[in-house]
Structures are given as structure tokens and as C-alpha cells.
């Protein structure tokens, strides 16, 4: 395969060409209610060619990997149709490397029926723990081998392992339906599903408890955000805004996101990096063959960096960060997050709580979305705080805000960094991309909550 790939990279008359070839195997298991709904295996083999000619990109993806030369020609031809000013990609080291994936309890070594049995056990625990209407338990794992080669001489083979699972409990009373969930993930290590019994029981009970929880009244609140929800917050509210592809061709957004701008207090530090090991967003090389890094985005409250592909770093004259990723061979690499997190501060959870006279404690999230400036995400669990004490549960809590105001309104940062690995990020057509999010507890003033 190496000869074929490298041969196809010769004599193309483009400024830059890269080839990806990927082979992947996935397993999917679904329970719905008490019953197994689906067990399936999928295999795929495919590749793509991306070509750069005078600043314009062409891209072709395919399943038939035998005729690479034809696709190189096609991608180069397409790139020629895109008239741009010349682009100098940010420099990349020339690398030859083979990266093998491994995991303690490797998904590749476990028979499918053992995986089904493990999920059944958890699905059964949901049913045994509370009077539920139904459940949904979903599991996916992936093993992928990818070859990357470019016209600069880089040739890497990289293996990727991934696992994600979610357990959902649904409770119903008359026409009211509520749900609670647990989502976990790892780089293909099944031990992430070990010893979760107590958490799964709590999920089932929470779904039922939500049915009788009062709905929150819409308005502006002081909130304490747990590490899971704070992780979604930093990802949605700030991470996407840090992606340079949104910024580089938009002069006004460049002014708004100028390095050196103050976003928050001196305790606020936000980072992203695939070089942080052991998380779902960790890798050795990104989809452009760049070695993984760790990048400060906000340091002591000030914007100091952003996430780049080689194109955006080249166009903006900033250092590349190895954040070009694609979900699979069908799509070109674009600027994405990896493991995004807020560094811990020095406030204990108890100290944080004691400072809140009237507020809301929000935990975990069903998901979130951003439009650069504005963001919104739902809380999976919420409680009223009165006079420094956590009181009754609330439901229907959906938080929204303006990133510029909200980051400035972070009043305290906890000392308890925790990671969430269940996340799948979507951008454009490419979802879900494995990412990890981390944060300590945060205390934020003036957050808009839409009641309901």
C-alpha cells in the first residue's frame, strides 16, 4: 500500500497533495426497553485525496482505493477551479511513524456476546432500580487504521480505538415524560464500563424523581455548574469561537478575537490539546499529519491562542496547533477541538456553595449548541440553592448566554477538575467526533435560564 500511495503523490503539478486511506471496523449494540434491539458489525475501506493549487482546495473521497492516481488528478483538477491568492501552509515536520493503539481491556479482544452481556447487565440494573417506562442503552466501538501521506514526504500509519456508551432511563406519569442518562467513553478501553452499578441505579431513580420536580421559572440566575456541564460550556461557548476557520476570513471577528483581549478574570485558564494523553480527543498526529500539541487559549483571563489547521495558521501567521480533524475519510480535515478544559482554581465546592444566597446548581447536559457569540445548553439535573444549601430538584433547566459576558461573569473556579468522555462534537456535516471536555466546578453570575 505504501508504494501505491507514495507513487500516486508523484508528478501532480499541485502545490500540495495529501492522501488518506482508512480501514475501520465498528460494533454497535442497542437495547430498547428490556429487549435487545440491534447488534451489528460494519467494515469500511476508503480514502481521500486533498490537493492545494494556488490557495484553492480540491478534495475527492472514495471507496475504491486501487486507482489513487485518478483521484489525485480529480482533486488537483478541482483545486484549479478555485481561484485564490497563493497560500503558504504553516510548516510541518516531515514524519515517518507507525502508531499502534492499545487499551487495558481492548474492545478488539472481547467477543461481541460478552459486550452484549455487559450492556444487558446495566440495562437490567436500570429496570431494577426504579419504576421506569422504558430504557435505551447504546454502545459503539471502533477500530480504525489510517494511512496518511503527503507530498512533503510525511508517511504515517496510525491506529485509533474508540468506545462510547450511553444508558438512558425514561419515566412517565400520564402525559409527562422525563429522562436521565449516563454517558461514558474511552479510547477503546472497556474498563470504562466497570463498576458503574451505583451510578446506573442513580440514573433510574433520577428519571422518576424528575417527574415530580417543579419546573424552573425563566429568568436570570446565579449558577454553580458541575464539571460535566462546565465542560460542555467551555466546549460550546468558547471552544467553537476559538476555531480559527471561523475567524480568519472575517475581519470583524478577527478584531473581536484579537490575541491579548481580556475574556475573564486572572484565574481563568482554558486549554485544548490532543497531546493531553488518555482522553477521547487524544492522538499522536492530526488529519494533516501534525504532531499533537497542547494549546493555551485563555491564560490568566486573556486570549492567547486559537485552534488551527495548517491553512488557518498559515493565513493568520500564527503557530499551528495540530487541530485539523475529519470524522472519517469521506470528509476533509477541518479545525476541531480535541480535549478542551478549564484548569482548576483554588475554590472548594463548599466555599463556592456558601457564597450563594439564591441560585441554581446545574449538573451534566443533554447537549448544547453555539452560534459563536451566543450559546445554549440543557442541564440534565438541577437543584435550587438557598442560603448556601442545595435544596429541591428542578426540571426544564436550559441555560443560555453570551460568551463574552458569561466568561467575564465566572466568579469562582473550583479545585476539582474532572473529565467527561461521552461527548460527540458536531460541526458542519461532520458529527459525532470524539472529544473530551474537562472542568472544575464554576460559579457564574447572571445566566439566562429559559423556564418551561
Amino acid at each position, binding site marked *: 500500500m505504501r508504494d501505491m500511495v507514495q507513487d500516486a503523490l508523484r508528478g501532480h503539478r499541485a502545490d500540495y497533495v495529501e492522501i488518506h486511506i482508512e480501514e475501520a471496523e465498528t460494533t454497535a449494540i442497542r437495547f430498547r426497553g428490556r429487549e435487545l434491539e440491534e447488534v451489528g458489525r460494519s*467494515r469500511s475501506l476508503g480514502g481521500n485525496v486533498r490537493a492545494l493549487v494556488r490557495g484553492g482546495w480540491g478534495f475527492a473521497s472514495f471507496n475504491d482505493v486501487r486507482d489513487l492516481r485518478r483521484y489525485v488528478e480529480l482533486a488537483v483538477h478541482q483545486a484549479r477551479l478555485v481561484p485564490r491568492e497563493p497560500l503558504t501552509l504553516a510548516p510541518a515536520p516531515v514524519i515517518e511513524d507507525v502508531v499502534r493503539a492499545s487499551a487495558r481491556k481492548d474492545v478488539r479482544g472481547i467477543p461481541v456476546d460478552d459486550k452484549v452481556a455487559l450492556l444487558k447487565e446495566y440495562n437490567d440494573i436500570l429496570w431494577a432500580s426504579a419504576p421506569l417506562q422504558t430504557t435505551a442503552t447504546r454502545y459503539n466501538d471502533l477500530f480504525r487504521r489510517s494511512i496518511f501521506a503527503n507530498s512533503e514526504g510525511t508517511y504515517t500509519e496510525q491506529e485509533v480505538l474508540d468506545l462510547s456508551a450511553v444508558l438512558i432511563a425514561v419515566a412517565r406519569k400520564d402525559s409527562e415524560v422525563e429522562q436521565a442518562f449516563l454517558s461514558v467513553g474511552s479510547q477503546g478501553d472497556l474498563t470504562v464500563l466497570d463498576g458503574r452499578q451505583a451510578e446506573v441505579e442513580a440514573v433510574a431513580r433520577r428519571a422518576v424523581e424528575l417527574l415530580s420536580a417543579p419546573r424552573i421559572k425563566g429568568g436570570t440566575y446565579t449558577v454553580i455548574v458541575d464539571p460535566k456541564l462546565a465542560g460542555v460550556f467551555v466546549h460550546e461557548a468558547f471552544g467553537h469561537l476559538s476555531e480559527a476557520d471561523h475567524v480568519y476570513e472575517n475581519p470583524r471577528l478577527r478584531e473581536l478575537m484579537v490575541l491579548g483581549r481580556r475574556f475573564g478574570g486572572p484565574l481563568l485558564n482554558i486549554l485544548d490539546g490532543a497531546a493531553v494523553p488518555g482522553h477521547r480527543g487524544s492522538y499522536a498526529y492530526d488529519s494533516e499529519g501534525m504532531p499533537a500539541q497542547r494549546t493555551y487559549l485563555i491564560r490568566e483571563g486573556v486570549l492567547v491562542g486559537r485552534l488551527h489547521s495548517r491553512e488557518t495558521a498559515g493565513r493568520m501567521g500564527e503557530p499551528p496547533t495540530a487541530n485539523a480533524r475529519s470524522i472519517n475519510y469521506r470528509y476533509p480535515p477541518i479545525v476541531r477541538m480535541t480535549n478542551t478544559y478549564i484548569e482548576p482554581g483554588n475554590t472548594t465546592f463548599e466555599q463556592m456553595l456558601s457564597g450563594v444566597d439564591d441560585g441554581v446548581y446545574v449538573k451534566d447536559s443533554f447537549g448544547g449548541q453555539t452560534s459563536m457569540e451566543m450559546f445554549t445548553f440543557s442541564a440534565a439535573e438541577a437543584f435550587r440553592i438557598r442560603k448556601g444549601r442545595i435544596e429541591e430538584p428542578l426540571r426544564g433547566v436550559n441555560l443560555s448566554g453570551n460568551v463574552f459576558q458569561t466568561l467575564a461573569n465566572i466568579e469562582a473556579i473550583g479545585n476539582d477538575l474532572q473529565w467527561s468522555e461521552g461527548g460527540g462534537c458536531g460541526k458542519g456535516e461532520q458529527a459525532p467526533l470524539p472529544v473530551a471536555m474537562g472542568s472544575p466546578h464554576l460559579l457564574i453570575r447572571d445566566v439566562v435560564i429559559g423556564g418551561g
Partner: protein
Amino acid sequence: MQDIAEQVLALASRSATWAEVYAASEEETPVTFKANRLHSVETREARGLALRIVVDGRIGFASSSQLEEPDLLVRDALATARFGPESALAYPTERVQDPGLDLYDGQVTALSIDAMVQMGQQMIDRVRTRGEDILCDADVRKVAASVLLLNSSGGQGSYRQTVVGLGLNANRVRGTDILDIWEEDASCHLGALDADAVVNAVLEKLDLAEELVPIRTASLPVIFTPKGAYMTLLAPLQAALNGKLVLQGASPLAGRLGDTVFDPAFSLFDDGRVPGHPTSAPMDGEGVPTRRTTLVEHGAVRAFYYDLQTAGLAGTESTGNGQRGLTSLPSPGTHALRIAPGTASYEAMLADVSEGLLVDQTMGAWAGNVLGGQFSGNVHLGFKIENGRLVGRVKDTMVAGNVFEALARLAGIGDQSYWVGGRAEIPYLYIPSLAVSAR
């Protein structure tokens, strides 16, 4: 594909009681513009085979893009069938004919990249006349797809489809205020694509968004544009009418067939047979002919939508809603949801509101308790209504409620339905009171 599909079917039938091969291939060509200029031209070819089998009453499933290895595909499916779910499938036996849905247009496949570039650039040039500070992203894409289904009980069908689509996003940044307005259109036919309508909608909203106005936290009347209703209200409805969620009792509409749950003026259909539409097909993903299904009629729940397995478990028939991708089993999915138009003109609805909100884009409304019918979204693009007039754009505002309560008493349904990105057909919806939260 036909040869390989037949080969896999024959091979699988040796060991399985029943087998079904679904083969799909497509070629997609997106032309993408960023910041007012052409950014990339792409071609994406994809193909694959999915094999579903029943062995000893259990379902096995595997898929592959490696057409050269039918043995491996069959072996994978057999391996999963040993402990797969119990089958409740009624095996299709019909040879499905295309009833003349007109899903293929040679003009789409013949459309040159130059012409696509021109279409995109023309849209952008028109929007840019509204100001130097406007930046447009756009895409023009064409797709040619073919689907083939064969099963061992004699069921089969195939069709070809083209899709051509346009998307346009206008971005304007002023200080820390970021405005994004997007519109889209899609059709199987080049001639049916309306780029002017896409551009005009963006321009109209750009003009309306010039002024920023405050809004108070209160229960207020809210009018949803078709796009606003699609983004905010449709997902909970789609979930509640899904036969699988109904069977599990996870839908608030479970057990309510025949009950009047919605406003008597509200009717909703799922239609798999709208001629020339990207959501249409002669058959679903498991060889059942598609149809138009009345889900809600004059406020009463008339039907849920089903695939074969769910229908079997529920003791009913598939409604031709077995949707699938290549890599998973079919499950109930809608084709095109269509809300029947009412009698109110948009102007009359607007005139009726003394203080309220027009919602055109929301964000994150899907992220809450969709099963319970709850929605709570950031008003990504919305306009304040005062004394029957749109007075400006609102920001930092959320709109929240329950779909079943909101649609139980409507103050008006628009007298015309509009296709939203070719996916659903919806009129303006006027809800007398919703929780609006502002900063």
C-alpha cells in the same frame, strides 16, 4: 451493484431463514464558499452493502464498503445473529414499482462545476449589496444516488435519485454582536430550485435585523416562521409519533390514538411520495412502498409511523417508514412532515399581536427533554412585535414551552405552507402565549 447484491443474497440464504441485501451508492459534489469567495470543490463517492438476516428467529446485521469480500459480510451477519434480537419482521414479497415520483433529473448530473460556482457567486453578490460588512458562506451541492433492495422472500425494488441544494449564510459582526442568517432550498430538479427566494429571505431578514431592541421576561404571544417552527417544534412531534417510542410507552401520545390532543385546526402528515422531492422514494429502506400517512387530523391522533420490526412487535403494519443508513438496521423515520395550512394570513397574525415575538431561528431547542415535548431554545434570530409591527431584532433571549401544550391551542395557522430546506412543509404558527426569558 446488482451482481454483488445477488451474490451476497444467495450466499446468505444458504445459512439464513431469510435474508435482505440493501445496496446504496452515491456521488456528491459540494461547492463551498467562505467569506464571499469560493473555497473548495469536492467529490465524494460512497457505496456499500448492508445485510440483514434471520437465523433461528434472530436478527443479524452487518455492513461493508468492501464489495470484494461478500464472504466476510455474510460471516459478520451470521456472528451477530446468534445472539441478536428476536425477529418480528413480516417479510416483504412485493416488487415495488416507481409510481412516477420523478426523482431523477439528468440536468442535475450534467450540471457543471462552473455553473454551480456561478449559482453560489450570484447569491453572494446579491446579498453583498446590503453592506460591506456582510460576509457570506454558501454551498451549492448535487447528489446522484442509487438504491437497490433484494430479499429472499421475493421483495425487491430500486430507484435512482438526484438532489440539488443551495445553502446561504449571511454573517455581520458589529462590536460583540454577531448576526447569522441562513436559508436553504433543495429539490430533485434543477428547475425547481429557487435561488431568488433564498436570497430574498436573507435580504428581508438582514433589513429587519438592523435595529436591536429589548424584550422583557414574560409570557408573550409568539409567531414561528416555518423555519423557526421546524427548528423548535418538529423534533418533539417527530419523536412522539414514532411507533417505536409509542410501543415503549415513552411517547406522551402512547395510548392516545383517536384522542383530540392538538388544536382542531392542526393536521399533520408524513408524506413519502411528494413528486420531485429529496425526501421521497418509491419504497422505504426495507422494501415497503412509501405512502402518505395522516398522523394528526383536525387535532386528533390518527396514526403513528412504523418500520417492519416495530410494527411486528406492536401488532400492526409498517407504514413504509423504515429509514436506514448503510451501517445500521432500519428504524422508524419520517419522510417529509407536512403541516396542513390554516386560514390566517401572516399579516393578520402579525396585526393581532400588541407585544410579542417572531421566531425564525432557534439554537439548542433540541437539547432538552424532547421526549416530554419540552423545548427551550436560544432565539438565534427573532424579532420583537409591537402593535402589529416588527420593530427590531432581539438578543440574549430564550423561548420555552411544551409542544403539546403549545399546539393544543393555536391562535392561528398560516394560510400557506412553505418547504423548509426541502425537508418539511410548514405554515406560520401563532401560539398565544409562551415563556420568553430575556437578560
